[in-house]
């Protein structure tokens, strides 16, 4: 039986979640609402028995510098090192990859005219690790799933369009379903939601926009794919443009995928959204 996408998750990758996990602050009143929202998500994931998580994320000048900056970069390694992004190494085990599966994805995606940068060595940082911490916590025996990191340039304009990201998801679906091995695959679209981290508008959030985005992602993703970067940045803050990565996740799912969970918490400077779909 070939591989299949069983679920998709859209979620924020706020960096401060990392230290909150490392220092076991999940039950602190300020963090509890966020972490509690993931309890049913993890129970649901345990029933779906995923083998591989494809994590669509962006690096924050840890593994990739602006001297050479890929628009789309796919990991094709057996393991991914934890990157030091300037704050010291987090005490996490290396993340297992599935190089054969990655190679298949690369071949199919390039054939579908997505000309990726292929990384046979790649460190991963909070953009990738925070979603893993929330959805697939590690234990002393390591991480419970294999992974494929898919890095998107959402930092240095020009960025790929929202539609390009959505279409990448559709191509990813075709690529997964043509892999002959019997794998259950989950796609994580990460980043956002509303936030701006620089300029006088630092700390800007737009909860109304975020809820609208969650509604549309569920019911009307095609129209979200028409959003311009400018519109997202103007309404939700410059760094909210990361949300285009959620469209890759949504594009990888069937249009009729059922929503299972939805949560929103905006304590400090970022709308932390969570939405899950079952294919």
């Amino acid at each position: 039986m070939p591989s299949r996408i069983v679920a998709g998750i859209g979620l924020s990758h706020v960096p401060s979640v990392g230290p909150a996990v490392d220092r076991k602050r999940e039950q602190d009143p300020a963090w509890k609402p966020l972490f509690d929202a993931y309890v049913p998500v993890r129970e649901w994931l345990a029933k779906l028995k995923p083998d591989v998580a494809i994590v669509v994320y962006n690096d924050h000048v840890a593994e990739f510098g602006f001297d050479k900056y890929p628009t789309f970069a796919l990991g094709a390694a057996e393991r991914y090192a934890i990157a030091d992004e300037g704050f010291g190494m987090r005490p996490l085990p290396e993340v297992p990859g599935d190089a054969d599966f990655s190679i298949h994805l690369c071949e199919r995606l390039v054939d579908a005219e997505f000309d990726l940068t292929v990384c046979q060595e790649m460190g991963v940082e909070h953009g990738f690790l925070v979603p893993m911490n929330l959805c697939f916590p590690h234990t002393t025996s390591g991480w419970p799933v294999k992974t494929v990191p898919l890095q998107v340039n959402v930092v240095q304009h020009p960025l790929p369009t929202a539609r390009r990201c959505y279409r990448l998801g559709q191509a990813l679906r075709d690529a997964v379903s043509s892999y002959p091995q019997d794998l259950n695959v989950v796609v994580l679209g990460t980043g956002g939601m509303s936030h701006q981290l620089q300029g006088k508008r630092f700390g800007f959030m737009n909860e109304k926009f975020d809820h609208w985005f969650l509604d549309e992602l569920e019911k009307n993703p095609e129209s979200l794919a028409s959003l311009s970067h400018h519109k997202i940045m103007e309404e939700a803050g410059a760094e909210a443009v990361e949300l285009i990565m959620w469209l890759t996740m949504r594009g990888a799912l069937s249009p009729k995928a059922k929503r299972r969970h939805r949560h929103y918490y905006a304590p400090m400077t970022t709308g932390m959204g969570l939405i899950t779909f079952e294919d």
Partner: protein
Amino acid sequence: MGIPVKEIPDTSIFDLRLSRRGARMNRMCSALCSAREREAFKRDEEGFMARFGLTETEKDLIRKRDFKGLIDAGMNIYAMLKIGSATGNSLYRMGAQMRGETYEQFLATRNIKDAV
């Protein structure tokens, strides 16, 4: 001529023009993703900046911890977080300064200020 991103008030949009302007500084910040380099920066900030060929204006912005000025000069926000970490300035402290507020004033504008 390409298609530059339209401006948004009080917002910096990190495009290739800005990235080119800030290239020296962003290269320097990338180096701070190593414990050894962070120590080198803390030990001799001037020598570290000279090693990456920063201009006098850029060096001065770093000396003054002028975060808004650094963003305007082409330092990427995620690169700046590494300088923040090496100099004891958290994201929220840098943000407060960019807003023209004290840290306490900024925290008072948040929904749940303990989620840091």
